[in-house]
């Protein structure tokens, strides 16, 4: 999310003396400078279980995952600590074959017992269960020498993605820790590529290669360097000076501000999830409810959204317009059902006149003379589009959308409640309209499931249109019950049709993964020409391990 509020503040003129010494060090060993999190000060904390304040280089770089699923390549599995995984025939057990010959960074032998131990950990204390898996796993056991079998409570073919995000920790260390929830793990022991904390201050730390890394031959970088950067503006200033190699932050007008100032910099913004306006079918205000339940109104709403302006202005041209009637988005283009666009695409393109025509044909006119349209029954339409406070790019987007609605003659405005309040209101159907983002992923399943399954309406903001379609629900459910890809595509296309025909959502744009890189010191960067995997440096992107292994010092 790059809608983080940024403050003014640029980084620093570095003392000339230190700059020189830093350069000479960098010459001796290859240091990759990255910004994987933005904070005001570093705390020495490498506890993988802490959601809030562990250093962002903990996952993947210290704790090697079992498998990395490459979302960009349809969830292709890159095996790491595991060498294979498979579902049982009834889809209720998933088995991981554990790699031989891996050592912990302290030289101890790594084995399936450590994996077992790690899964037992998450059952001990809910705080350790960062992936919320404990309730979904029946049991974990070792079969034979090196196979870990995880028995599930319910069939869920998408669960592997979560399972591989459980940190695999050394039993011989963690069994000694009394309170894993407050342990700071200052000198971590892991199986990942960078386990040695070389230096650590509140403003900078360097994390160097694991002497016992099993995949050392593919690792060409000596150390990771993490300068403390708090704001996007500081990051930009440091980037202009060429101090950073790998970042995933928001930079306004990047061509003008960064690339023109430092040509060795480059960027690639692959498509991520989508974002849409949605209306609340159960709006507490009768007039709004009448309008929102009228497909003509929803279509007219969709036709007033100037998607190109959203992309250009709110998104700095980084986003792309989302004109898929189901809101599918650019990321899932390969799953697209072209029939949906053929039939309903016209309602998802900017067409103010068409929208006006649609509404007047449907009987909307200004009956009370307040300058705004009323419903066919004469009720008043007046609503606020809510967006979380501080998500400034979304606020701009909502403002552009509202501008269109006002052109149409609809009394709409933007409101920016606190995130918590917004989520609460959306879950409890106590709102009129909203602008929200959606999950991306390797398949559109998570997008449809969280956004359109009626059981999710009161669970989070994504499904808060509160429109229930039992057939749609069963279509979505059926996706996890099959492992047959042709059937999966068929299901997805049916889902798209149902949503598109109903105009349940008002698709607006596809967001992007942010990724900038400095070509000067390293080569092998993923890019549009070399689209290996999602190249984001943030810790919730396991593919970054693949990326770091692909980089070569120049």
């Amino acid at each position, binding site marked *: 999310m790059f809608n983080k*509020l*940024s*403050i*003014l503040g*640029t980084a620093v003129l570095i003392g000339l003396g230190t700059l020189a010494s830093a350069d000479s060090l960098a010459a001796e060993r290859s240091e990759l400078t990255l910004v994987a999190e933005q904070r005001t000060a570093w705390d020495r904390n490498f506890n993988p279980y802490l959601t809030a304040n562990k250093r962002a280089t903990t996952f993947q770089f210290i704790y090697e995952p079992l498998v990395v699923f490459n979302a960009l390549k349809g969830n292709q599995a890159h095996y790491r600590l595991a060498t294979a995984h498979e579902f049982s025939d009834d889809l209720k057990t998933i088995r991981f074959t554990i790699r031989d010959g891996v050592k912990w960074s302290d030289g101890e032998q790594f084995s399936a017992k450590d994996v077992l131990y790690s899964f037992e950990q998450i059952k001990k204390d809910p705080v350790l269960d960062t992936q919320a898996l404990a309730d979904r796993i029946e049991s974990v056991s070792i079969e034979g020498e090196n196979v870990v079998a995880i028995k599930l409570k319910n069939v869920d073919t998408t669960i592997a993605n979560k399972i591989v995000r459980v940190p695999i920790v050394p039993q011989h260390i963690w069994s000694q820790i009394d309170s894993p929830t407050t342990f700071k793990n200052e000198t971590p022991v892991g199986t990942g590529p960078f386990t040695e904390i070389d230096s650590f201050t509140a403003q900078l730390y360097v994390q160097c290669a694991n002497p016992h890394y099993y995949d050392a031959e593919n690792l060409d970088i000596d150390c990771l360097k993490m300068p403390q950067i708090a704001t*996007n*503006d500081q990051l*930009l*200033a440091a980037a202009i000076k060429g101090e950073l190699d790998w970042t995933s932050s928001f930079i*306004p*007008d990047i061509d*003008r*501000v960064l690339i023109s100032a430092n040509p060795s910099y480059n960027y690639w913004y692959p498509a991520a999830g989508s974002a849409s306006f949605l209306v609340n079918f159960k709006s507490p205000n009768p007039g709004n409810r009448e309008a929102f339940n009228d497909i003509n109104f929803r279509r007219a709403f969709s036709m007033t959204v100037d998607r190109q*302006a959203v992309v*250009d*202005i*709110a998104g700095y041209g980084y986003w792309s317009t989302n004109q898929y009637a189901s809101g599918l988005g650019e990321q899932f283009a390969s799953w697209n059902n072209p029939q949906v666009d053929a039939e309903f695409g016209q309602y998802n393109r900017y067409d103010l006149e068409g929208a006006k025509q649609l509404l007047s044909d449907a009987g909307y006119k200004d009956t009370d003379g307040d300058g705004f349209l009323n419903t066919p029954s004469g009720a008043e339409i007046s609503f606020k589009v809510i967006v979380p*406070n*501080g998500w*400034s790019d979304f*606020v*701009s987007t909502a*403002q*552009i959308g509202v*501008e269109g609605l006002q052109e149409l003659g609809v009394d709409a*405005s*933007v*409101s*920016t*409640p*606190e995130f918590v*309040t917004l989520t609460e209101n959306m879950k409890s159907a106590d709102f009129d309209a909203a602008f929200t983002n959606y999950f991306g992923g390797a398949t559109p399943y998570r997008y449809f499931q969280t956004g359109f399954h009626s059981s999710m309406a009161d669970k989070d903001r994504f499904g808060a249109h509160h429109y229930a379609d039992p057939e749609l629900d069963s279509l979505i459910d059926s996706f996890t019950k099959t492992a047959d890809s042709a059937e999966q595509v068929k299901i997805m296309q049916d889902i798209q049709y149902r949503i598109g025909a109903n105009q349940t959502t008002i698709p607006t744009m596809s967001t992007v993964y942010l990724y900038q890189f400095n070509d000067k010191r390293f080569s092998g960067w993923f890019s549009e020409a070399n689209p290996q995997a999602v190249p984001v440096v943030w810790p919730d992107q396991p593919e970054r391990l693949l990326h770091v292994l692909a980089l070569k010092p120049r």
Partner: protein
Amino acid sequence: MNFLKLLLGNRKASIGLVIVLFFVVLSVAAPLFSDYSPTKRVSRPHQSPSAEHIMGTTRMGRDVFAQLAYGGRTSLAVGFGAGALVIVLAIGFGITAGYFGGVVDEVLSSMMNIMLVIPQLPLLMVLAAFIGEASPLVIAIIIGCTSWAWSARVIRAQTMAIREKEFVSAAQVLGEPAWRIILVEILPNLISIIGAAFIGAVIYSIMLEATLEFLGLGDPTAVTWGIMLYNMSNTSAILIGAWWEVIAPCIAIAMVGAGLALMNFAVDEIANPALRSHTGLKRWKLKQAQRKKILEAGKQSLAKQQQVPL
């Protein structure tokens, strides 16, 4: 009121008045000065100043001058509104404490003193954060409700001094009810001090509003000078080189503050003739009160400091 006459008679005050009036007129009659809506895209993003957009455009392609003019409405309204709320509360607390004295005074004075020692900006930030999406109205109300203590203390002290005057006793002996003594006999005598406190409160409120909104604690869809700064910093206007977006609201805030300060400078001189120049006539009186005055001036400047550092 002759208060206005006094203002106009002082050169600094007249300059201040003209500056403030300029911004008041600019914002009240904004549609006369700008053809653009402050909330509509009217051009491409970040256009530098030109004949068409004399102060350039924002990231959202909105006209900066239109935002400045329309934003002045809200910013000034918040400033004057919060200032008025401050003064009403300060008068309420100050006169009540000063006139009735005794236990009433002790309770109210403790309230004032406690309000004075709780750091205000952090408190406001926390309040605004907890309330969330603080609209200009909400900001005006929370500023008003947390900033009255200093003025109340000054008004209280002055009330106590006036209460000792014989015309108050005369009114009491005449049988005038307490509310009438307070409103008709005492209040008009406080006008200059209330005027000064009001101007101070307006300056302070405008500064506070801009600060809170800049920090992202306001309603980002509002059009105010503080929100302009917020949007400016949000879109990294400084780094992009869109200096017009930084300068315009900064100058407006600084100018209005300066105008009001000049007005207050005059009010200070009016209230304390010793600061202008004086010959013989009242010197003996001055001298008697001198030691006391200096210590009190110190005390007041302490209280004034409270208002200032933003």
